[in-house]
């Protein structure tokens, strides 16, 4: 069994209202050096048989079809 990390981020050009609101609050609190904030999801999966190539391929598929919304998001699967 291994820990797999799936990182889901908004596509670069897609508006991220969350990130922008957080940036503003941080700026208000004096963290002006933080010039941009983007909010993504961090999915930590525990996976049986993660060493098998077949399982790895399936993880890519799961990330694409279930864990991310391809219309607005990109994803990245990080294997252990």
């Amino acid at each position, binding site marked *: 069994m291994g820990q797999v990390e799936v990182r889901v981020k908004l596509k670069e050009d897609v508006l991220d*209202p*969350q990130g922008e*609101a*957080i940036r503003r*609050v941080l700026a*208000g*609190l004096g963290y002006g050096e933080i010039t941009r904030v983007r*909010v993504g999801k961090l999915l930590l999966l525990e996976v049986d048989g993660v060493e098998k190539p077949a399982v790895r391929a399936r993880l890519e598929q799961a990330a694409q079809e279930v864990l991310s919304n391809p219309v607005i998001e990109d994803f990245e699967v990080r294997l252990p």
Partner: protein
Amino acid sequence: MTASVRGGEGGPASSVAARRGGGRRVAVVVFPGSNCDRDAMAAVRGAGGEAVPVWHQSEDLAGCGAVILPGGFSYGDYLRAGAMAAHSPVMRAVRRLAVEGGAILGICNGFQVLLEVGLLPGAMLPNRSLRFICREVRIRVERADGLLLRHLAQGQVLRLPIAHKEGNWYAPGDVLERVESEGGVAFRYCSPAGEVRPEANPNGALANVAGLVNREGNVLGLMPHPERRVAGLHGGVDGLGLIRALVEVA
């Protein structure tokens, strides 16, 4: 971070009384994204008080001895519900008021803010269903003493609406134990007959917690909306007791 301000070490209520100018003035804090502020102000006025809107950037509470942190989506609730509002300048004044023994009522998002600043214990997780829930619930009054709860009766069942996405109260085991032993639970979700059962729990909150009160009884937070039940046409007046108590101590 928040440990340093947790509690509210009970200052004399007299300092509050001294400060207020005689009118029953209740401050209603307006954060960017608050959306129940007008409702709270209307409820205060309906209960005979003067409602004073206080902007989140204000460093003081306009001399009011009581304050409502209203519902809504402060800063969109974009990070965690209430998280960013907790850092507003006005919250320093709210903390001071808490220490001085003034009355603080956090409703829904306002309750979430009180948790985020540590004036009440625990934290909110997303509802068990992961969905926003707006419906009428029953809550049982667990404490009927202190500044804010005194118009209620222990065991009384109130009918109030909830409207939130993050009302699943959580606290680590030791904190929950402490809260329970200190009588920190003000309200619990219950059946119409007043039984505290899992089926009556709309959001998964630990121990069916719908509202908390601090040891001194002057800081109260709850998820249901009392300000939406203060007139006959609201379909009930079960929220009136809380608002009246707040106005009276203001």
